[in-house]
């Protein structure tokens, strides 16, 4: 187990360094911060002065090191737009994103778990076919369109729910459903294949042979073991889930990190964009790590292999 944890931690460090290079590179290698910062009619001297001021005249690895060492201490520079530290701006917007993500995850589980298990146990039945059809349609659904359709139906036509914003539980309903609908199809299919795989295992046959009732076989033997692939999948899907949260936030004007990121992109406020990108990636990496550790703890085969 100790070896396994060490291996996961090394991988974590490598991925974090990779992410920092990526987010540094997006601004400094692909683009030129000074060009983005100064008005187009600024003079050549003005450009040079700013380049020096921002330390952009130094070699790229020096700049990167400065970025990295500051970022580790939570210093991503000041927002070019709001004159507050980018880190604080992003951190303030984190809770709504996290709440939305968990609400979406909850909705997705409520839909995916029962339907996935049901269609696995009743393979090739009408229920199974129906579930698969809904899942295929759900996967093709652009959720920003789904969100707008929900707003048109429930907020504009029926006037039952607030169209956008944040605060009460009613504000949660549409965004959470939207995000849940984004995650549910793929999760349902994975739960289904996970349960099918487990049901074909020898120990299920053994349990049946012992005369254990079908209900007990499913509840005690199959579902417990099917948990492993489901937890792993949830970990892998977490990045996807946050991606979906980004889309959902922009549709419902949810005051989270994603809305802030899009606003900052529109304002060309790159320290905030960088900070948001790095922090979101960090959240994903940590969740992945926790999932890997939990799965490794539950299933010894995983931590020995690989």
């Amino acid at each position, binding site marked *: 187990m100790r070896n396994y944890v060490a291996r996961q931690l090394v*991988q974590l460090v*490598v*991925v974090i360094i*990779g*992410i920092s290079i*990526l*987010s540094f590179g*997006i*601004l400094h290698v*692909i*683009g030129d911060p000074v060009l*983005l910062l100064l008005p187009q009619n600024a003079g050549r001297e003005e450009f040079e002065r700013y380049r020096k001021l921002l330390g952009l005249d130094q070699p790229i690895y020096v700049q990167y090191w400065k970025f990295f060492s500051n970022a580790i201490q939570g210093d991503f520079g000041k927002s070019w737009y709001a004159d507050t530290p980018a880190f604080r701006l992003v951190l303030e917007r984190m809770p709504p994103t996290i709440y939305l993500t968990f609400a979406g995850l909850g909705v997705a589980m409520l839909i995916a778990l029962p339907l996935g298990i049901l269609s696995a146990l009743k393979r090739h039945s009408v229920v199974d076919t129906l579930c698969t059809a809904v899942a*295929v*349609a759900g*996967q*093709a*659904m*652009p959720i*920003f*369109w789904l969100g*707008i*359709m929900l*707003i*048109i139906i429930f907020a*504009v036509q029926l006037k039952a729910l607030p169209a956008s914003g944040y605060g009460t539980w009613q504000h949660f309903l549409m965004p959470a459903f939207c995000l849940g609908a984004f995650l549910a199809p793929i999760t349902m299919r994975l739960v289904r294949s996970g349960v099918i795989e487990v049901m074909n295992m020898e120990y299920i046959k053994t349990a049946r042979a012992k005369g254990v009732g079908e209900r007990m076989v499913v509840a005690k033997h199959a579902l417990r073991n099917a948990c492993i692939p489901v937890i792993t999948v949830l970990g892998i899907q977490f*990045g*996807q889930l*946050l*991606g979906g949260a*980004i*889309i959902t936030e*922009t549709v419902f004007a949810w005051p989270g990190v*994603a809305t802030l*990121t*899009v606003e900052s*992109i*529109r304002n*060309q406020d*790159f320290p905030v*964009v960088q900070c*948001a*990108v790095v922090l*979101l*990636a960090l959240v*994903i*990496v940590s969740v*992945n790590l926790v999932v890997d550790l939990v799965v490794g703890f539950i299933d010894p085969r995983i931590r020995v292999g690989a």
Partner: protein
Amino acid sequence: MKVASADGEVALKEVAAESSAPTAAQVSLRRLWRLKWGLAAAAILLLIVGAAALAPWVSPHDPLQVNIRHRLAPPAWMEGGAAAHPLGTDQVGRDLLARMIYGGRASLVIGVSAVVLSATVGVLLGLGGGYFGGRADWLIMTLINVMLTFPFVLLALAVIAVLGPSLPNMIIVLGIADWPFYARVIRAETLSIREREFITAGRALGMSHLRIIFRQILPNLMSAIVVIATLQVARVIILESFLSFLGLGIQPPTPAWGNMLGEGRIYMLNSWWIAAFPGLAIFVTTLTINLMGNALRDWLDPHMNL
């Protein structure tokens, strides 16, 4: 005992075959019937692609022609709708059907080009990593992990923000953000093919590494590549539409499903059709592509695990 039962089975099969051997025509008909959904989807998709390609000839109006007197006209079947504008008009009186027909062009061109780009990059890296192993493989795997950790949407947003939105930039960004999906599958497949006997035989015969990779391994992976690429076109189209929806993709007045949906959002209080129809177009397109991809997978290799 085993032999006897196997013999018995063979004999039974022979009897069955003699009594009602399906003709070749019946077999291929049955195969086609299993692909019915894929074929139906392909037909609809062909219609959409055809309409977009032949837009100047099939479109009822000029997609940029403004007509303030007929602005916000509802679809023809609603009260106040006109037969001249079957799906109604937008906020400046442009015909919605015409804009939808033209709008497909951007999505389809970007979708296909980005997929060609990402498939090329992903397949090359996957082949290289899987075949050569060692440090190159480690580097590629790490890169894949970093890229998959990053929410695809966030990455695309950040890069577009720096590069600025334009058609070539969108293709590059979406193409580059998408390659890890191919690399991961191709690498895993290459790893297993590498151990097969015909590769050892090839080496023994003195074939070069490049020849083995491109003449012996790659042909074995073609069906996997085709299936992933098909499914990825749908993903890229959704992402492109989302960027355009946020105003970071195809710029108005050029019609694209995404930016039409974004503009329609402002008018959804009174004129739902401006947002509803372009989104429906995205949905139907991605749904048909997914159905086609699934059918393609079943047809090429039902055991493919994608």
